[in-house]
């Protein structure tokens, strides 16, 4: 067991740190959360800067450890978050890299890395959430196209996306897991209507997407026809396995800020609150160690993250909610003011036990796939 990095890795870290120190001060101010076009431009601009500086491929070209260092350092330096690039960089990209044809890789990967495309994820439907394989959006073959009709929901960033990783049913007769295909759908195709949904945090973070005979070329299918469920599992393992790494670093920073705040407003003197902060420190330190453990494991086995991602996601999503609830206790009544720091974070943390698979579903995954308990339901 070893927690030291190789000289090459340390060199990468030093170079990145140096570069961040140079570029971060000159970044334009962050657009307001409601300014979607502004946020899109900002997030893509940041990705372009990373690409031009040679850090574009870090999400799927580099080793897991280098990627870990990248996320740690960017977060620590307060660099922009992946934002609108989340789906493209953290799961559509890796999925296409792992499952796409050579032509598909050429077509989509470089533009994602260069910050030219925003992707969204069209998996969930009104009647297919936890039971994702129950999805009903249909795709008929018509010449070289699929003709797609149905609707998707909770599609994050749909309003500003160029592409959508879309799950469709290509064989309605087959058992539900067998008749699904994974398509890349251009969001400007005729027949697509996006209707923003307001989240409990007040912003339009996600949307409903209605699909009325949208034509998607057969060439845009990643993986075989009706083999989309397997491809989806690859996508989800990236989503759960590696997408949260940088956030743990961010949470540790928040915790230090909270302690300072508590000292300023006197709540630090309450031993119960103080010890709660101490316990959260233990929690996020341990989650960081688990991250390092999982990354080392991925590196050893070379490839797609395993079900260990569910272990991490379960604990992390609850810890994050705990963190911001504690922040509210540090703030006292000021936690009712949306303009105070951490208040919006507290609201958005409520989604963590739901998005990317609810905690209830993750428990079943851990029980059945890791502990070998019999299948429920």
């Amino acid at each position, binding site marked *: 067991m070893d927690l030291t990095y190789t000289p090459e890795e340390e060199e990468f870290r030093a170079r990145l740190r140096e570069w961040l120190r140079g570029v971060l001060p000159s970044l334009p101010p962050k657009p307001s959360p409601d300014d979607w076009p502004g946020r899109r431009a900002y997030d893509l601009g940041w990705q372009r800067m990373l690409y031009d500086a040679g850090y574009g491929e870090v999400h799927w070209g580099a080793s897991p450890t280098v990627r870990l260092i990248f996320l740690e350092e960017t977060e620590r330096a307060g660099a922009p978050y992946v934002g609108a690039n989340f789906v493209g960089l953290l799961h559509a990209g890796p999925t296409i890299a792992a499952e796409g044809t050579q032509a598909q890789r050429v077509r989509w990967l470089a533009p994602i890395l260069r910050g030219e495309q925003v992707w969204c994820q069209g998996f969930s439907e009104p009647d297919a959430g936890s039971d994702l394989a129950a999805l009903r959006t249909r795709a008929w073959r018509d010449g070289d196209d699929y003709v797609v009709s149905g609707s998707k929901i909770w599609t994050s960033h749909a309003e500003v996306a160029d592409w959508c990783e879309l799950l469709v049913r290509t064989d309605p007769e087959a058992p539900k897991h067998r008749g699904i295909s994974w398509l890349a759908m251009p969001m400007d195709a005729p027949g697509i209507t996006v209707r923003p949904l307001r989240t409990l945090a007040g912003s339009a973070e996600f949307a409903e997407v209605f699909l009325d005979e949208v034509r998607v070329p057969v060439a845009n299918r990643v993986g075989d026809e009706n083999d989309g469920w397997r491809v989806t599992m690859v996508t989800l393992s990236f989503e759960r396995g590696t997408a949260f790494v940088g956030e743990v670093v961010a949470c540790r920073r928040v915790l*230090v800020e909270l302690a300072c705040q508590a000292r300023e407003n006197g709540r630090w003197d309450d031993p119960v609150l103080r010890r709660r902060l101490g316990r959260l420190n*233990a929690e996020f330190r341990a989650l960081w*160690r688990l991250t390092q453990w999982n990354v080392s494991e991925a590196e050893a086995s070379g490839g797609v993250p395993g079900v260990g991602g569910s*272990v991490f996601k379960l604990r992390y999503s609850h810890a994050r909610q705990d963190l911001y609830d504690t922040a509210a206790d540090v703030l006292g009544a000021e936690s009712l003011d949306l303009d105070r720091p951490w208040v919006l974070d507290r609201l958005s943390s409520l989604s963590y036990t739901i998005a990317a698979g609810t905690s209830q579903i993750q*428990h079943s995954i851990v029980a059945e796939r890791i502990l070998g308990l019999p299948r*429920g339901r």
Partner: protein
Amino acid sequence: MRFQLTEDQRALRAATRQLLARHFNGEALRAAVEAPATLDRALWRELGAAGFFALRLPEAEGGVGLGLPEAVLAFEEAGRALLPGPLVATHLAAGEVPGAADGSVVVAAVDGGGPAEWLTQADVVRGDASGAVPLRSVDPLTPLHRVPGAQGATDPVAALLTAAEQLGTAVRVCELAAQHARTREQFGRPIGAFQAVQQLCARTLVRVEVARAAVYAAAVTADPVDIAAARLLADEAAVRGARDCLQVHGGMGFTWEAEVHLHLKRAWVRTHRAGENTESEEMLACDLVAGEA
């Protein structure tokens, strides 16, 4: 960075598990419960011969010359097997108290203000045990004494090895819970197919993996704050895990016959060893503001 067990570490863990399976299996455990407060001296010497106590002693001094990570793996196995005795105190005495290293001498310690373990059977007691009063110990396998005025600085290594034992307990109760959930049937199906039971088991596993990462990392860094964090998570994993395991066992879990209560009681005992949780929490809280001022 290769934060994974090396081949040698895997081998050490497997060898320790085999040794304990040979000398302290379920039968021996039951026998120990029937003969409370007597330490199996033969087993203690076996452990000594296998290098359990001298693991971190330099080879020049007759030890095995390994480090904290290896000690943590061995103690995890001891915890998993529910091995009784003042393991940590004797391990820490190796090289300082003659006979501790090879297991011919049993060493107990008075530390940190918690109840002292195994004063009854120890050949040597480190620390001031004067005025010690026996308790009716909740753990049938660990005799305890209250020692008035006992306090003193907590040894971080003692805390880390205790955390390693707790991790072992957490691993074991997770195995026991899953085993039972796979085989016990109600309503015509294994209870493990019911989601409420799956949740109990899954939570246990998640706590194990988080604690494991924290304990192993603390063994690598030997940093007192890392150790405090590892301690908190390992205590939680052991105590909560044992309770949930008991729940999964239903009425059988509440009996003396089932092994679960022994794990829970030992886990409780260890939470009072080498400094308490509040102490770790305070240390971790201070760490958050250590950077400024």
